[in-house]
């Protein structure tokens, strides 16, 4: 462990530390960020009202639009002369978000990343190929500083700048032992290496992969691990809060440890904003505890997951978030149950021959009806009706177990689910306009 005392601190003590830091952060925000002072006044709240961790729920949420509304520098708690770096994410909606860092932020971030890298098993002996993008995106530089802090030999290979052929050559000739990039780029690298006739077991020295910045599944993990002959870890971060490193999977890979000395993680019902208990699925909300230039209070990530607070076999006491289940923007409410299209996809992907083409249809009879159309491929086809029906039921049962709501599965002919260029229309909600 990089910081064993902090990483294994009993949860009760961690929470005491969190409260102490929360109080300081609230005061700091109130005194230095007009945006927060206004928010507190509107909510008739004073920093001294925050006396326990439960009081956090009194503070209004911060959302991405708040950052856009104060573009570019409006949420900074420090004067520009103390800012040493900016990162920015463009998003798809037009106005970018800008995030500022002081010298202290850069060094705190490096320590968080170093702790995360060590959590994934990286040591100062490793040769780390950072193939995340370097630039406005936080991935490349975030990993880079973390690796150097840890003392690993860092190769700033920079995905998107360094061609894939060169990446493969580096991996082979420089014996990279750790690869950091997006999971989709890892798959692409594996494919290209295979085309060049490279045998990852003999030609590469990889042992650990750290993949994030986009949602991926257990099936993808297995695929990458087999293709590159390494052990794959999930990493979580938000560009609005430093970047990568907010959470990292340890060797147990039973969720990502979220560093409680730096962040308070809450789970809320995305519809009502109500705080949920550990184990309940909802939107992750983060409060920064050690951020200097741009502290954020109750920042809504839009990411949906489940938080576990029970102890981890690795010895770390920090709570874990499970793999991201989806985005709250995509959430469907079926008979009062929150359902994410990504959950349906995960179930379908587990069943061989099913899953490439599917469509989720939500309709209302008296109650909401969830239908999932699945195309029958030669792989699952049988001339016996009983076998087809068994397959249909199996999909229904596996969906019900994961979604907690019954879905009616329909087997349809291949090609009947509409294909659109680019992103397929996976969800059709016919309830609109129906009472």
């Amino acid at each position: 462990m990089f910081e064993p005392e902090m990483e294994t601190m009993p949860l009760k003590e961690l929470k005491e530390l969190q409260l102490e830091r929360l109080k300081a952060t609230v005061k700091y925000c109130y005194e230095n960020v007009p945006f927060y002072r206004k928010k507190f006044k509107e909510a008739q709240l004073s920093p001294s009202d925050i006396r326990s961790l439960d009081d956090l729920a009194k503070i209004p949420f911060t959302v991405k639009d708040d950052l856009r509304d104060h573009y570019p520098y409006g949420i900074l708690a420090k004067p520009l002369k103390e800012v040493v770096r900016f990162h920015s994410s463009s998003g798809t909606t037009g106005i970018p978000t800008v995030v500022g860092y002081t010298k202290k932020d850069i060094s705190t971030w490096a320590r968080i990343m170093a702790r995360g890298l060590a959590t994934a098993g990286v040591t100062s002996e490793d040769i780390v190929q950072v193939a995340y993008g370097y630039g406005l995106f936080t991935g490349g530089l975030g990993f880079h500083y973390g690796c150097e802090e840890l003392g690993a030999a860092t190769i700033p290979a920079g995905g998107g700048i360094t061609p894939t052929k060169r990446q493969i050559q580096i991996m082979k000739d420089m014996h990279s032992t750790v690869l950091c990039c997006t999971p989709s780029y890892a798959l692409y690298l594996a494919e290209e290496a295979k085309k060049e006739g490279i045998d990852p077991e003999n030609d590469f020295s990889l042992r650990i992969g750290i993949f994030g910045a986009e949602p991926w599944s257990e099936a993808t993990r297995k695929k990458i691990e087999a293709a590159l002959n390494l052990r794959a870890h999930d990493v979580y971060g938000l560009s609005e809060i430093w970047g990568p490193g907010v959470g990292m999977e340890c060797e147990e890979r039973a969720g990502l440890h979220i560093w409680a000395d730096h962040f308070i993680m809450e789970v809320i019902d995305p519809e009502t904003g109500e705080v949920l208990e550990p184990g309940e699925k909802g939107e992750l909300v983060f409060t920064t505890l050690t951020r200097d230039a741009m502290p954020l209070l109750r920042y809504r990530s839009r990411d949906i997951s489940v938080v576990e607070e029970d102890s981890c076999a690795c010895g770390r006491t920090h709570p874990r978030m499970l793999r991201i289940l989806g985005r709250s923007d995509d959430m469907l409410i079926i008979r009062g149950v929150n359902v994410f299209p990504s959950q349906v996809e995960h179930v379908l992907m587990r069943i061989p021959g099913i899953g490439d083409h599917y469509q989720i249809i939500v309709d209302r009879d008296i109650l909401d009806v969830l239908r999932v159309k699945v195309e029958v491929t030669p792989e699952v086809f049988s001339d016996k009706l009983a076998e087809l029906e068994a397959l249909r039921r199996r999909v229904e049962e596996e969906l019900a177990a994961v979604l907690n709501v019954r879905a009616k599965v329909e087997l349809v002919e291949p090609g009947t689910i509409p294909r659109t260029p680019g992103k397929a229309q996976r969800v059709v909600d016919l309830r609109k306009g129906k009472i």
Partner: protein
Amino acid sequence: MVVEQVSVFVENKPGRLSKVTEILGEAGINIRALSIAELGEFGVIRLIVDKPHEAKAVLTNSGFTVGVNKVLAIEMGDEPGSLAKIASALGDAGVNIDYAYAFIARAKEKAVLIARVDDIKKAEEVLSREGIRLLEADELQSI
């Protein structure tokens, strides 16, 4: 002695059978026997045709999910009791008939039972012991 059956996955809605048979007709494929089984919103069309692999290819090219599997073509006398004889021979031997369908051969006073069984080898043994004849693919085309 087995024959190959083509089966096609179809949604249970108007026009699907006509689509399948049109495709086969256009490809010059002749249908000797056919059965349709449905379960709720989907079904399977099973066909005995003169060119099963060609049939699979043209249907697959048209976007259908198609399988080819082995079935028995059992000759029956076109008279009372002949189906019972076959069924009891197989049943006594513990061979299960997954599904079956029959057609009457033109002018031969014979009928043919197409049967999908769980143990083809055993079924062949039992039937030949009972003196029941199995038809070959080319024989099926000539009746």
